[in-house]
């Protein structure tokens, strides 16, 4: 009896939903996501834009309401423009480095590792079970002038005197490569793993050697993986805060560090509207760069074949 009663109850619930128009049903399903993004993403973003136009209190803390462009004018200071330049350059270099290191690694994993594939993939993931912060501090210990690496190199007689890498752009670069590499490897691995091996065979069958096959078949067909990997690395890298803070010392600032200072600084070194303006600028800048990038990619994809 209960078994027959339950479906009818359930049916009534379903039919109420089914009576909604299609857009209504879609809206119902999307509601949780809308609420989440509205409260935790859109509202803070709008708040940030508002703050960026307000007037600094001059001694830190929440600013006074109003509409001013002072914070944006302040951005044009060559000192800050330089930080923008350094950040974008490092993000670009870091992305390219991750791609150059990550592609061969992903290629090996997808095509040659056969039996050890799972083990190797696991080895890439395992470090990420520890906190980002701890891993970056670990690099500080390794790269320190009196650290592990320095001592080993000296003991082996490879270098004379202590290693002077920590608190330089090189240290930041090492930290970036280490932390962001998996973000590049995984999309590339998926793209290479999905690549139909018969296409590679067909290419070789038609007289193309290994290198010719790579440029004409493997790379073009895994380009979506390259695009995804580069975006996954480039976007968070532009907002990177921890690595320069820990491995870069006080001289090598990223945008993220500059923004953080405006909110966390004590007294006069804190400036909320300026920090917010910096944040808004980074978001706009990223949107522009990413869209140019995607547009260029789409143009490459729609060009038929490999001319020439």
């Amino acid at each position, binding site marked *: 009896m209960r078994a027959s009663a339950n479906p009818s109850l359930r049916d009534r619930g379903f039919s109420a939903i089914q009576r909604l128009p299609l857009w209504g049903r879609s809206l119902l399903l999307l509601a949780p996501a809308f609420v989440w993004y509205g409260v935790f993403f859109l509202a803070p973003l709008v708040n940030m834009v508002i703050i960026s136009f307000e007037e600094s209190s001059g001694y830190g803390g929440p600013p006074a309401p109003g509409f001013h462009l002072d914070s944006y004018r302040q951005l044009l200071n060559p000192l800050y423009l330089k930080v923008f330049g350094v950040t974008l350059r490092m993000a670009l270099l870091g992305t390219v480095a991750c791609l150059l290191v990550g592609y061969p690694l992903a290629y090996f994993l997808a095509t040659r590792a056969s039996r050890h594939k799972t083990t190797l993939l696991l080895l890439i993931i395992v470090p990420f079970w520890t906190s980002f912060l701890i891993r970056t501090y670990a690099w500080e210990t390794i790269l320190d002038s009196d650290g592990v690496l320095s001592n080993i190199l000296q003991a082996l007689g490879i270098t004379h005197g202590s290693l002077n890498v920590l608190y330089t752009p090189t240290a930041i670069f090492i930290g970036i490569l280490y932390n962001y590499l998996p973000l590049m490897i995984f999309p590339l691995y998926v793209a290479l793993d999905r690549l*139909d091996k*018969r*296409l590679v*065979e*067909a*290419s*070789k*069958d*038609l*007289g*193309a*050697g290994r290198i*010719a096959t790579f440029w*004409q*078949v493997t790379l*073009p*067909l895994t380009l979506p993986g390259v695009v995804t990997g580069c975006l996954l690395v480039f976007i968070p890298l532009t907002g990177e805060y921890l690595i320069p803070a820990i491995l870069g010392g006080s001289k090598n600032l990223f945008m993220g560090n500059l923004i953080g200072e405006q909110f966390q600084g004590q007294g006069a070194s804190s400036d909320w509207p300026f920090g917010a303006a910096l944040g808004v600028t980074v978001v706009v800048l990223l949107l522009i760069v990413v869209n140019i990038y995607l547009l260029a990619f789409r143009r490459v*994809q729609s060009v*038929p*074949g*490999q001319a020439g």
Partner: protein
Amino acid sequence: MRSEVDATARDASLYDVELLGVSKTFGATTQAVHDLTLRVERGIFLSLLGPSGCGKTTTLRLIAGFEQPTTGSIMIRGRDVAGLPPYRRDVNTVFQSYALFPHMTVADNIGYGLRQQHLHRDEIRRRVGEALEMVRLPGAGGRRPAQLSGGQQQRVALARALVNRPTVLLLDEPLSALDLKLRKEMQQELKALQHEVGITFIYVTHDQEEAITLSNRIVVMNGGRLEQEGSPTEVYDRPRTRFVADFIGLTNFIEGRVREVIPAVNGEQSTVTVTTGIGEICCASDQSDVSVGEAVTIALRPEKVSLVESASADDSPRDGWSTVGGIVTQAAFLGAQNEYRVRVGKESSGGSQGQEIVVRQQNLGAMAETPPNDESSSPTIDGWRVFGPGERVVLAWRHEVGLVLRDSGDDRATGDRVSAQAPTPHASRA
């Protein structure tokens, strides 16, 4: 054995592809191809036929260069291709899944091989155009493979391979993804195309009908070994092993023991008399290497057996014919043919020792209800009479039609002894 093989290999001008004692082992245990020796004459259409896992695709991949043989050597136009990668071999492959490059247009796909040779742009354009004409797809050059139907993709794959004018074209079950009607159509096109270009085709298929329709030569493979090589007629009419007889077409098998062997005299065939569960059967055969008392199997094609009314059959069997009495248990109308299952046995009533024989007769338009009264029309002409279940009949076939197949142990051993170039029988049977 090996020196003999090498000696014949020097006469390379005749052959486009030669496999000499080729074996391929994957891992430690999986033997995909076992000691295969095969010579492919220039310009022929050869099919590698066998069930899945028989090593036919591996053989093709060995020729293409995707795999290297564990032992033995492969020659293409008399040149040993050991260790050469696919891109250094003058062969092209049509893949089962076509393997067209999805990011290129049809024209760029077809021109791919020519571009690797760094030919001039105009030359490439001209030859791509010709290739598209050849496969009857003119004007499709600008399209993407994904925009084409299966049959069209198949044609592009063919054009992409043939445009390079290879020594040999390898085809790996290229029609298996097409529906029946299109497959028949493409079979005819393939055959015409091969005739037109005159390039040697090596065609892998598990479809015996396809192999018979298309090929000049058929190589039947089983368990990594060559079972039989011959023309479609030879393979169909003179199967050397039970496996071949069973795999190609429908066959009745009658088991028995050899009672008497009369060796061939004056160019006539030898005669083997076999005692079977359904009586003594006389077979005229080229194979006289069976001995008295040996267990053998007689293979009998259903369409080669005539069905005669029991009453009209003579008491004394006619010279050169075997006859067995039986009862029709099933009659099926197949359209072009009528198929009967006839229970035959020592006692024509069909005792415990009896067996069912399948007989197929051409449908000549006769009706069961109106048997021809005219006695002059010979009742032995197939199809003049349609029988129903329960009717007593006499099966008759000529002596040459029954094939004596050796039955010692297993088919594989038989295959080794019968096929001329298999050097090691009984090797590696785990």
